[in-house]
Protein backbone atom coordinates (compact mmCIF):
# COMPACT_ATOMS: atom_id res chain seq x y z
CA UNK A 1 0.00 0.00 0.00
CA UNK A 2 1.05 3.57 -0.68
CA UNK A 3 0.10 6.92 0.84
CA UNK A 4 0.69 10.40 -0.53
CA UNK A 5 2.19 13.12 1.67
CA UNK A 6 1.77 16.83 0.81
CA UNK A 7 3.88 19.65 2.27
CA UNK A 8 2.62 23.24 2.31
CA UNK A 9 3.96 26.70 3.06
CA UNK A 10 7.29 26.84 4.85
CA UNK A 11 7.30 23.03 5.12
CA UNK A 12 7.51 22.60 1.35
CA UNK A 13 10.62 24.80 1.38
CA UNK A 14 12.12 23.01 4.37
CA UNK A 15 11.59 19.53 2.90
CA UNK A 16 12.31 20.68 -0.64
CA UNK A 17 9.17 18.77 -1.64
CA UNK A 18 5.58 19.47 -2.49
CA UNK A 19 4.65 15.82 -2.31
CA UNK A 20 6.18 12.41 -1.72
CA UNK A 21 4.91 8.83 -1.75
CA UNK A 22 5.53 6.52 1.20
CA UNK A 23 4.97 2.76 0.96
CA UNK A 24 4.07 0.21 3.59
CA UNK A 25 3.31 2.39 6.56
CA UNK A 26 0.54 1.29 8.91
CA UNK A 27 -0.50 4.27 11.04
CA UNK A 28 -0.49 8.03 11.01
CA UNK A 29 1.64 7.97 14.18
CA UNK A 30 4.33 5.90 12.49
CA UNK A 31 4.18 8.04 9.37
CA UNK A 32 4.84 11.20 11.38
CA UNK A 33 7.79 9.54 13.18
CA UNK A 34 9.20 8.47 9.83
CA UNK A 35 8.82 11.98 8.38
CA UNK A 36 10.38 13.65 11.41
CA UNK A 37 13.36 11.30 11.07
CA UNK A 38 13.64 11.95 7.35
CA UNK A 39 13.27 15.73 7.75
CA UNK A 40 14.77 16.64 11.13
CA UNK A 41 13.70 20.28 10.83
CA UNK A 42 10.02 19.28 10.98
CA UNK A 43 10.44 18.80 14.74
CA UNK A 44 11.02 22.49 15.29
CA UNK A 45 7.93 23.57 13.31
CA UNK A 46 4.33 23.80 14.33
CA UNK A 47 1.89 22.09 11.99
CA UNK A 48 -1.50 20.37 11.82
CA UNK A 49 -2.07 17.14 9.93
CA UNK A 50 -4.91 16.44 7.54
CA UNK A 51 -6.03 13.00 6.39
CA UNK A 52 -7.96 13.03 3.12
CA UNK A 53 -8.59 16.79 3.48
CA UNK A 54 -9.96 16.64 7.01
CA UNK A 55 -7.94 17.85 10.01
CA UNK A 56 -6.77 14.82 12.05
CA UNK A 57 -7.19 15.58 15.74
CA UNK A 58 -5.14 12.58 16.84
CA UNK A 59 -2.54 10.40 15.15
CA UNK A 60 -3.77 7.04 16.43
CA UNK A 61 -5.30 6.20 13.05
CA UNK A 62 -4.63 3.29 10.68
CA UNK A 63 -3.80 4.28 7.11
CA UNK A 64 -5.28 2.80 3.94
CA UNK A 65 -3.91 2.55 0.43
CA UNK A 66 -4.19 5.90 -1.43
CA UNK A 67 -4.70 7.99 1.68
CA UNK A 68 -3.64 11.62 1.27
CA UNK A 69 -1.89 13.15 4.28
CA UNK A 70 -0.90 16.82 4.37
CA UNK A 71 1.35 18.72 6.77
CA UNK A 72 -0.17 22.16 7.28
CA UNK A 73 1.71 25.01 8.95
CA UNK A 74 -0.45 27.67 10.65
CA UNK A 75 -2.88 29.14 8.12
CA UNK A 76 -2.22 32.66 6.88
CA UNK A 77 -4.95 33.52 4.38
CA UNK A 78 -6.41 36.97 3.84
Amino acid at each position, binding site marked *: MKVKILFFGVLSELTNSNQIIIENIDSLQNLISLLENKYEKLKSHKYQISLNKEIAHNTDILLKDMDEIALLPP*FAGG
Partner: protein
Amino acid sequence: MNKDLYLVEGAITNDLVANYISRTNQTNNGAHSIFLGQVRNDIIDNKEVKAIEYSAYSEMVKSEMDKLVDLIKTKYDDVHNIIVKHSIGIVKTGEVSLFVLISSGHRKQAFSASKEFVDLIKEHIPIWKKEMFSDKTHVWK
Protein backbone atom coordinates in the same frame (compact mmCIF):
# COMPACT_ATOMS: atom_id res chain seq x y z
CA MET B 1 -8.68 29.13 -12.46
CA ASN B 2 -11.65 31.40 -13.17
CA LYS B 3 -13.93 28.44 -12.84
CA ASP B 4 -12.82 27.88 -9.25
CA LEU B 5 -15.55 28.83 -6.80
CA TYR B 6 -13.24 30.40 -4.23
CA LEU B 7 -9.72 30.81 -5.63
CA VAL B 8 -8.59 33.41 -8.16
CA GLU B 9 -5.15 33.44 -9.82
CA GLY B 10 -3.33 36.68 -8.93
CA ALA B 11 -4.88 39.87 -7.53
CA ILE B 12 -8.63 40.30 -7.24
CA THR B 13 -9.47 43.01 -9.76
CA ASN B 14 -11.79 45.99 -9.36
CA ASP B 15 -13.75 44.59 -12.30
CA LEU B 16 -14.43 41.34 -10.50
CA VAL B 17 -15.60 43.20 -7.37
CA ALA B 18 -17.73 45.63 -9.42
CA ASN B 19 -19.27 42.75 -11.33
CA TYR B 20 -20.46 41.02 -8.15
CA ILE B 21 -21.71 44.31 -6.68
CA SER B 22 -23.78 44.91 -9.83
CA ARG B 23 -25.64 41.65 -9.13
CA THR B 24 -26.80 42.58 -5.63
CA ASN B 25 -30.13 44.10 -6.65
CA GLN B 26 -32.53 41.42 -5.41
CA THR B 27 -35.31 43.46 -3.82
CA ASN B 28 -35.43 41.44 -0.58
CA ASN B 29 -31.92 42.65 0.29
CA GLY B 30 -31.52 45.73 2.45
CA ALA B 31 -27.83 45.57 3.29
CA HIS B 32 -24.55 44.41 1.82
CA SER B 33 -21.32 44.20 3.78
CA ILE B 34 -18.22 43.93 1.63
CA PHE B 35 -14.73 43.21 2.88
CA LEU B 36 -11.57 43.71 0.83
CA GLY B 37 -8.27 42.44 2.22
CA GLN B 38 -5.33 44.19 0.63
CA VAL B 39 -1.58 43.47 0.64
CA ARG B 40 0.03 46.03 2.94
CA ASN B 41 3.55 47.45 2.75
CA ASP B 42 4.57 46.02 6.13
CA ILE B 43 8.14 46.56 7.31
CA ILE B 44 9.86 43.37 8.55
CA ASP B 45 13.48 43.58 9.73
CA ASN B 46 13.75 47.02 8.07
CA LYS B 47 12.62 45.68 4.70
CA GLU B 48 9.38 46.63 3.01
CA VAL B 49 7.01 43.95 1.71
CA LYS B 50 6.58 44.32 -2.07
CA ALA B 51 4.28 41.38 -2.78
CA ILE B 52 2.83 38.24 -1.25
CA GLU B 53 2.83 34.85 -2.92
CA TYR B 54 -0.16 32.84 -1.74
CA SER B 55 -0.28 29.06 -1.94
CA ALA B 56 -3.19 26.83 -1.01
CA TYR B 57 -4.30 23.27 -0.51
CA SER B 58 -6.95 23.90 -3.16
CA GLU B 59 -9.21 20.90 -2.66
CA MET B 60 -9.28 21.46 1.09
CA VAL B 61 -9.97 25.18 0.57
CA LYS B 62 -13.09 24.09 -1.31
CA SER B 63 -14.35 21.67 1.34
CA GLU B 64 -13.51 23.93 4.31
CA MET B 65 -14.98 27.05 2.68
CA ASP B 66 -18.18 25.14 1.86
CA LYS B 67 -18.45 24.34 5.57
CA LEU B 68 -17.88 27.96 6.63
CA VAL B 69 -20.47 29.28 4.17
CA ASP B 70 -23.00 26.74 5.49
CA LEU B 71 -22.15 27.62 9.09
CA ILE B 72 -22.69 31.37 8.51
CA LYS B 73 -25.92 30.86 6.55
CA THR B 74 -27.27 28.62 9.32
CA LYS B 75 -26.29 30.96 12.13
CA TYR B 76 -27.49 34.16 10.39
CA ASP B 77 -30.96 33.47 9.01
CA ASP B 78 -31.31 36.97 7.52
CA VAL B 79 -28.26 36.40 5.26
CA HIS B 80 -29.39 35.59 1.70
CA ASN B 81 -26.12 35.42 -0.17
CA ILE B 82 -22.38 35.00 0.40
CA ILE B 83 -19.62 35.51 -2.17
CA VAL B 84 -15.97 34.88 -1.28
CA LYS B 85 -12.85 34.94 -3.45
CA HIS B 86 -9.22 34.53 -2.34
CA SER B 87 -6.09 34.99 -4.43
CA ILE B 88 -3.44 32.39 -5.06
CA GLY B 89 -0.11 33.25 -6.67
CA ILE B 90 1.49 36.69 -6.52
CA VAL B 91 -0.37 39.80 -5.29
CA LYS B 92 1.50 43.09 -5.04
CA THR B 93 1.17 45.69 -2.26
CA GLY B 94 -1.91 47.81 -2.81
CA GLU B 95 -3.70 44.95 -4.56
CA VAL B 96 -6.62 42.96 -3.16
CA SER B 97 -6.26 39.29 -2.16
CA LEU B 98 -9.57 38.64 -0.35
CA PHE B 99 -13.10 39.68 -1.32
CA VAL B 100 -16.17 38.86 0.76
CA LEU B 101 -19.70 40.07 0.01
CA ILE B 102 -22.55 39.25 2.38
CA SER B 103 -26.13 40.30 1.61
CA SER B 104 -28.98 40.30 4.10
CA GLY B 105 -32.39 41.79 4.72
CA HIS B 106 -31.18 44.15 7.45
CA ARG B 107 -27.77 45.55 8.27
CA LYS B 108 -27.19 43.96 11.68
CA GLN B 109 -26.61 40.43 10.41
CA ALA B 110 -24.63 41.60 7.36
CA PHE B 111 -22.13 43.31 9.67
CA SER B 112 -21.89 40.48 12.23
CA ALA B 113 -21.74 37.71 9.64
CA SER B 114 -19.09 39.52 7.63
CA LYS B 115 -16.76 40.01 10.60
CA GLU B 116 -17.23 36.44 11.83
CA PHE B 117 -16.77 34.96 8.36
CA VAL B 118 -13.46 36.76 7.75
CA ASP B 119 -12.20 35.65 11.19
CA LEU B 120 -13.16 32.05 10.37
CA ILE B 121 -11.43 32.23 6.96
CA LYS B 122 -8.18 33.29 8.64
CA GLU B 123 -8.51 30.46 11.16
CA HIS B 124 -9.72 27.54 9.04
CA ILE B 125 -8.79 27.95 5.39
CA PRO B 126 -5.52 26.24 4.32
CA ILE B 127 -3.76 29.12 2.60
CA TRP B 128 -0.21 30.31 3.24
CA LYS B 129 1.75 33.37 2.31
CA LYS B 130 5.32 34.17 1.45
CA GLU B 131 6.05 37.86 2.00
CA MET B 132 8.49 39.02 -0.66
CA PHE B 133 10.96 41.90 -0.40
CA SER B 134 12.62 43.93 -3.15
CA ASP B 135 16.01 42.27 -2.45
CA LYS B 136 14.47 38.89 -3.50
CA THR B 137 14.46 37.53 0.06
CA HIS B 138 11.21 36.32 1.62
CA VAL B 139 9.54 35.37 4.89
CA TRP B 140 6.86 32.67 5.32
CA LYS B 141 3.68 33.53 7.18
